[in-house]
């Protein structure tokens, strides 16, 4: 699993990468009450605002971690946003997207490095 400075995690399965937010991020956000996901087939560039997450506190954007195409989204978290607080690193993944260049993953943090970032 890899981690971004925007507190997203990435898990590679074949030529797809699954993206979610970290437990630290979900705790900082507080209770999640709304999630909006992109449509499958959406082409995105790294840094694009692809999803929105709102907690009792505020709204935040979820950024595309890499260039690619969204192929699948997790409608379960749209129907039950609270899942993002319950299981942010597992069942409450956000979307799966294609990964054109697997070497880009080397630029992200591993778990130990991310652990240092969030203290």
């Amino acid at each position, binding site marked *: 699993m890899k981690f971004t400075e925007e507190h997203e995690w990435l898990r590679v399965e074949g030529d797809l990468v699954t993206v979610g937010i970290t437990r630290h991020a979900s705790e900082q956000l*507080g*209770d999640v*009450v*709304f999630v*909006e996901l992109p449509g499958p087939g959406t082409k995105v560039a790294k840094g694009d605002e692809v999803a*929105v997450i*709102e907690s*009792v*506190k505020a*709204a935040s954007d979820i950024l595309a971690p890499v260039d690619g195409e969204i192929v699948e989204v997790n409608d379960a978290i*749209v129907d039950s*946003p*609270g899942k993002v607080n319950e299981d942010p690193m597992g069942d409450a993944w956000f979307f799966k997207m294609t990964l054109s260049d697997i070497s880009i993953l080397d630029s992200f943090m591993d778990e130990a490095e991310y652990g240092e970032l969030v203290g």
Partner: protein
Amino acid sequence: MAGLKRTALYDLHIELGAETVPFAGYEMPVRYALGVMREHLHCRSSAGLFDVSHMGQILVRPKSGDLVDAARAFETLVPADLLGLKVGRQRYTLLTNEDGGIIDDLMVAKRADHLFLVVNAARREVDLAHLEERLADTCEIEEVTDRALLAVQGPKAEAALEGIWSGINCMRFMDVETVGSEFGTLRISRSGYTGEDGFEISVSGQYAGPLAMALLAQDSVEPIGLGARDSLRLEAGLCLYGSDIDASTSPTEASLEWAVQKARRAGGERAGGFPGAGRILRELQHGARRRRVGLMPEGRAPMRAGTRIYREPHGGDSIGTVCSGGFGPSIERPVSIAYVQSEQGHAGTTVYGEVRGRRLPATVTEMPFRSPDFKR
């Protein structure tokens, strides 16, 4: 946090795991271990303890010694009927300005020989200066600085307080009492800011911690932070000064006509006689151009403060703006409070809020969004 004041309960908040934020010059708990959602639901189903010591407590004493003189003097600043208010009762009222706007919203309690005010923390200095300027000839204005203010709110609030003072169950909504207790003299009112039955208790700073701990020792009581305080008052349709009302909003615009009693309205025994009465009485009869209304977004996306409101899904000028909005944990959907043009403010009207560039439908709704259950 540098430069911020702390209430008498600060150490207890930290011990309870509070996350704190700056609020009106104080370092205040925004949430505890439960988190905003569960704190909110706990308050609605059981009882919540809030530290509201940042709010201002002010005594207004008549120089003549005659309470009628203090009530009459205070009536020159607010549109409330205070001569008609019984001793031992309190009333929600508004300090108005000459333009008919609102300087602050507050509670005023009538006691045997004085009036007791609870005002917003962020308005305390402005209010005190205003009272000194306008009432100095007739009244002594004294800010209470050595007392904390705790709120106990929720269906189990009365039971939680029975051990503190046995007479608690005789109080009705908006009654006030001053009682002796093992925590010193307590000034208790049956009121609050959550849309729940509940109490606010003014207690000497030295006893605030022990009183809070005695309450929290009961299984029914959990500490509640400012986050849930805001979502609770939002569901109850209650105004937050600075967001929903300010110096530019009149009582009619703010849908607070009920705070102007008959005696102070046109044709009443003491009609007018408060700042801005010309505009305020005129609007009570003829309405205002804009109005504070409830909005229920149809989807799940919250429409937060600042969201522009439109009449149509495309095109046209904005007809209003959301002043407070978020998710309502008890009604399990987003809710907002907005100012809209009065002709668009009728319950059932569909309007559109622009969220992230898209206009999403919302229905104008009567407030409160959730009916209160006060002990009257």
